[in-house]
């Protein structure tokens, strides 16, 4: 097992640490991972899993981009292409981005930031992980047994594939996989909600919660309330496919538009399952690297909650051309604009936090700043799509593809990467090479913009999405987009090597390398198996930099004081 190696990549190195137990080394052997109920270990197992899924989805993306470099057949047949983009979308959404931040980083840090020993239901937490694994297995079966080429949206009647050229039985496996993955997501949400409500350390009242926790909490609410609807939708789809019950198949008297309503009732809220955790991470990064509490803390916290709730009311904006009534389109369009407000509140408050801060540009912060820049573009182009008359033209073109990559990659993935860079030292106790991290950042940032900016242009010019082949007029833009994707790929490879090297032979991480006031930096590095040797009492907020001494910020807290001096050196160099 890969995760096992994490425990002791460099022998006794960790234990050299004056006897303070840490969660990586206090138990060893594969069983100590496979049956662990420690949220930190489960978080790490999720982390490796979602990274694997991301690489898989990323390779699919590169195949897509290579095929689209030229019109006509470049690499593969139309049929194969359709499977590749379907798998790209499905893997990225269901296996990667939904569990990414909440299940990996959230699992690891939520209890620590709450000052508690574990999540509310540790066994359930491990259960969720194995349900995730089971769902993944079903998904892989779908890939092996047939050609799953429905798009990640599984629209009927194509996905039912009866009496028409359509998808085959692999749809049943795929939807079963996603169905199962959904329960993993639901149970994680249930767990987090109970944890946040009931397990806060003494002194940690709601107004002191880290904004990371507010974000994850809002996400959990959506996970619990939206995912079951997807589950039942997919269940009905499986029944339609196997028993022909006539719910979604028009040939049997069913309604394909009903499927779309059901699907988006989940999948729009799901986009906030994706972005809220990204925003949650960015809050931590902006605060830490500006050495300042987030401006308008309560407004930012409430904006997460209101995004979660408003997110339930706008699903119809994916269906403006579907043949819904005009009244529905009107209501959905109006509500769509409302979600811009809480998103805007976040952006404005982040920018205001920079004002009069003391800003460091370490690699995690670069991702956070890039998040703001890219999410602004992604979000504003979402408004283009919310405008009824404009969406009619842009729907199902590359403009939409560019929009959602700007929010999902430019937003969530950048937030995730920022979070990994930020917490890597805490999680594994190792530093990575900052210079290479910066190089990777620039590759990813530039590559990303080249890839998807060109897609905005071809999209508004009318290039439809899910096209294997295209008119010559779109060639230059497709070429640029593919080139960008390769740059992006190089960036990820550099980043991957950097992390692998750190993991194997990285410098030992100081307890608080970034000089953060966040609660998670108050414990030892890597954390104690119970997070804190003793239940902490929170006497200040996680962003109260003015209440921390210089020494605390740069040397770490508590018992770890003299553990390391390296951090000061690093900081001085930066400044």
């Amino acid at each position: 097992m890969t995760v096992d190696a994490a425990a002791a990549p460099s022998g006794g190195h960790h234990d050299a640490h004056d006897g303070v137990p840490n969660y990586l080394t206090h138990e060893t052997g594969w069983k100590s991972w496979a049956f662990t109920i420690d949220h930190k270990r489960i978080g790490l197992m999720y982390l490796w899993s979602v990274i694997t899924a991301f690489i898989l989805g990323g390779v699919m993306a590169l195949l897509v981009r290579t095929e689209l470099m030229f019109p006509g057949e470049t690499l593969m047949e139309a049929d194969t292409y359709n499977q590749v983009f379907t798998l790209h979308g499905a893997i990225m959404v269901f296996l990667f981005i939904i569990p990414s931040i909440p299940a990996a980083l959230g699992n690891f840090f939520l209890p620590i930031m709450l000052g508690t020993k574990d999540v509310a239901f540790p066994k359930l937490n491990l259960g969720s992980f194995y349900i995730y694994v089971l769902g993944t297995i079903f998904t892989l079966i779908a890939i092996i047994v047939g050609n799953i080429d429905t798009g990640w949206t599984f629209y009927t009647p194509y996905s039912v594939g009866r009496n028409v050229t359509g998808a085959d039985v692999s749809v049943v496996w795929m939807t079963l996989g996603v169905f199962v993955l959904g329960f993993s997501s639901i149970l994680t949400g249930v767990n987090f909600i109970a944890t946040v409500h009931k397990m806060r350390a003494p002194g940690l009242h709601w107004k002191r919660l880290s904004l990371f926790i507010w974000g994850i909490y809002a996400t959990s609410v959506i996970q619990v309330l939206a995912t079951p609807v997807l589950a039942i939708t997919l269940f009905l789809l499986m029944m339609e496919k196997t028993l022909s019950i006539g719910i979604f198949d028009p040939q049997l008297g069913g309604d394909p538009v009903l499927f779309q309503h059901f699907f988006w009732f989940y999948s729009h809220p799901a986009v906030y399952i994706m972005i809220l955790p990204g925003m949650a991470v960015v809050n931590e990064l902006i605060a830490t690297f500006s050495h300042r509490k987030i401006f308008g803390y309560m407004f930012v916290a409430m904006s997460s909650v209101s995004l979660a709730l408003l997110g339930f009311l706008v699903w119809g904006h994916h269906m403006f051309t579907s043949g819904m009534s005009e009244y529905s389109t009107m209501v959905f369009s109006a509500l769509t604009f409302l979600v811009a407000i809480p998103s805007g509140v976040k952006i404005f408050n982040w920018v205001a936090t920079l004002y009069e801060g003391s800003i460091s540009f370490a690699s995690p912060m670069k991702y956070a700043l890039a998040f703001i820049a890219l999410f602004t573009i992604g979000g504003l182009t979402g408004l283009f799509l919310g405008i009824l008359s404009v969406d009619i033209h842009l729907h199902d073109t590359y403009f939409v593809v560019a929009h959602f990559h700007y929010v999902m990659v430019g937003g969530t993935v950048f937030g995730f990467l920022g979070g990994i860079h930020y917490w890597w030292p805490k999680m594994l106790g190792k530093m990575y090479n900052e210079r290479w991290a910066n190089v990777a950042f620039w590759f990813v940032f530039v590559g990303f913009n080249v890839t998807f900016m060109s897609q905005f242009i071809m999209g508004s010019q009318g290039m439809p999405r899910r096209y294997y082949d295209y008119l010559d007029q779109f060639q230059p833009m497709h070429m640029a987009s593919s080139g960008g994707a390769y740059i992006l790929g190089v960036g990820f490879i550099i980043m991957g090597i950097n992390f692998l090297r750190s993991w194997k032979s990285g410098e030992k991480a100081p307890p608080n390398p970034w000089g953060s006031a966040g609660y998670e930096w108050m414990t030892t590095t890597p954390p104690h198996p119970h997070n804190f040797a003793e239940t902490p009492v929170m006497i200040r907020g996680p962003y109260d930099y003015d209440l921390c001494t210089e020494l605390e910020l740069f040397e770490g807290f508590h018992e770890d004081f003299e553990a390391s001096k390296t951090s000061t050196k690093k900081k001085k160099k930066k400044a």
Partner: protein
Amino acid sequence: MSVHEHHGPAYLAHHFETPQQQFDTAKLGMWAFLAQEILFFSGLFVAYGIYRTWYPEAFSVGSHLLDWRMGGINTVVLLVSSFTAAMAVQRAQLGDKKWTGHLLIITFLCAGGFMVVKYFEYTHKIHVGILPGQYFGCPGFDCSVPPGHHFVEEVGAAIDAAHHNAGAGMVPYHLRSFFGIYFIMTGLHGLHVLIGMGLIIWIWRKNNRGDFSPEYNTPVDIFALYWHLVDLIWIFLFPLLYLID
């Protein structure tokens, strides 16, 4: 585990500070879970609502093919079991191990009774061929044999009953969708009953072991919450499926 410095009574898990906290957390978690259960079923109710409006004829005939007496018995049985589950909670809170056990058994028997009735309903439908989707009119899921006279008689009678006079109409095509919805809804509900029965066994054994006390009876309480929801869903399913005209 060397790092386990333990505190408090045995039932208190290591990551909780007080039994009260543990209880509140479990309860909140269960409520969150029930919220997802409701949304899970609500998708089905929406589908039901839409197709009932579209195909009132098929739904009316379909409902006449269901035996309201069987459904009625099951409703009563589940209501009783909900009541005994609530009683079990109260007994457990009082530390009455004996009656907690008895009440759990009664609840279990009611749940079992419910499943037995369901079993007879299902086997009869399978035998006759009143099945969902493409298997409608296929006795025993075998579409190579034509529907037998049972099928013809039953469906004919239901059509007559739905029209309040004899020889009134044809077999509505969308009966197959009605039975699709019927089997999915009652099937998923039945699955919940089975899971509930499993939970009862688990709690009953804990009770026998003497795990519960006035201080600690969370599992009984949590189970009862779940059981009430299962009951509640049936309270909606019964009239919507069996009693429409």
